[in-house]
């Protein structure tokens, strides 16, 4: 059953701004401008921080503030974000 099961989990977290501020941790709904979507697979955790419209609850996929990619086979502690490294661009394309 596990081999036929879903192969990732999804989580998300909102932010009021790209820089840490006093309300970064718990922004009120009216202050949310960015949403970080993350998916966890067996081998990677990928996160994309996107512009976000709270009226529609939809991200702007063309407005990417930042990306994170952790290669869990080499870096299970998620210490090294490799999202900008050329050899991982195909992985990111597949995950997005």
């Amino acid at each position, binding site marked *: 059953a*596990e081999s036929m*099961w*879903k192969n990732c989990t999804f989580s998300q977290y909102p932010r009021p701004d790209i820089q840490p501020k006093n309300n970064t941790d718990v*922004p009120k709904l009216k202050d949310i401008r960015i949403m970080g979507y993350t998916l966890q697979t067996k081998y990677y955790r990928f996160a994309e921080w996107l512009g976000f419209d709270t009226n529609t609850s939809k991200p702007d996929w063309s407005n990417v503030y930042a990306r994170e990619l952790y290669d869990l086979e080499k870096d299970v502690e998620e210490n090294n974000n490799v999202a900008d490294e050329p050899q991982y661009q195909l992985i990111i394309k597949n995950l997005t």
Partner: protein
Amino acid sequence: EGRPNVLFLVVDDLRPELGCYGSPVITPNIDQLAIQSIRFTNAHAQQALCAPSRASFLTSRRPDTTKVYDLDTYWRNAGGNFTTLPQYFKENGYFTASMGKVFHNGTASNETDDYPYSWSVPAYHPSTTKYKRKKVCLSPDGTRHEYLLCPVDVSQQPEGTLPDIQLADNAISMIRNMSSGLKSTNASSHLPFFLGLGFYKPHVPFKFPKEFLSLYPIETIKMATNKNLPASLPDVAFETYSSLREREDIAALNLSFPYGPMPDKYHLLIRQHYYAAVSYVDAMIGRVLNALEQSSLADNTIIVLIGDHGWQLGEHSEFAKFSNYALATRVPLLIHVPPLLKTSFYQKKLTTFHFQDVFQNMPQQTEGSGKVSNAFVELVDIFPTIVDLAGLPSVSECPSVSHEIQLCTEGTSLLPLIKPVSAG
């Protein structure tokens, strides 16, 4: 008649820092439950904040559907009039009751914990929760402060108790009453129950009976192996652990904003106090489970234990939740299927919940015991899973837009993962 009860245990800010998950933290009562449960090793919350996570798993919808991202929004006003997990049981003939923090209390649950929609009776809140932000932590000079690190002499606290002690007391009382009711000849008291228990610790402040700190001598506490801020972490991904900084003892450190770092001494103290708070909650859960067994209800009660999200204990120079790191989203998930259910793992009666008192008899570690699933699961999966286990009509999958649909799931029933384990 014959339908299983449900005991739904939610622990605030509990990451899988439990003996049954390989942690050195002393949690014999939860470990005992794990031995008789399926332990999911890859379970993740949908948002690492109390109100959004709870609204999500209790409606089985993701935050973009509930539209609950903060601590103030009520999903029925924002996302839709969604049926909740306890509401579904109530509508199917169950007696449902909430104690403590099941829904996020306050405006996020309409100031009522979603009563009367979700619950048969008004939610119970321990009277001592009102001291959460009060100056009740004793300093060496005898004055009282609002500290993060707050081991206490319970007898010296207001009302001589603490919220999780009151919560366990009240739950035990209700369990005994339910047991008495089931044995009575009064037909109306024969309803099966769905009891939601929301424990308050190890959420900050770390206020717990001080004897639990003695389980963790500070010289035995280890630093996080990756305590430094990763150079490649985007600014937007960093959380500033504001809920710690606002306490007097941490504020006095004058930490640089936003990146700190936390001094090593406090890094260790925070880990020590988190561990002690987890052991304290473990003891309260042990008392409740013991009452369930003594009331002869354990063999017909589905038990689910989860953390609402994880917590960072100094890894990546971060503390608290508020992020997308796996440490913030990953949670413990135990599902105990009682012997009387056809999907049970057991051929005979095995449910035993003897209270494990860590101050009387240090328990053995139990990592690796019990059934394990390494499948990827999400907290939105819990609703359809419990429904299937209890034998209620299954919940259908939500379409891509579901704001007008009261009952559906954005998760997946875990029953296919449970059945093969049961067969094995």
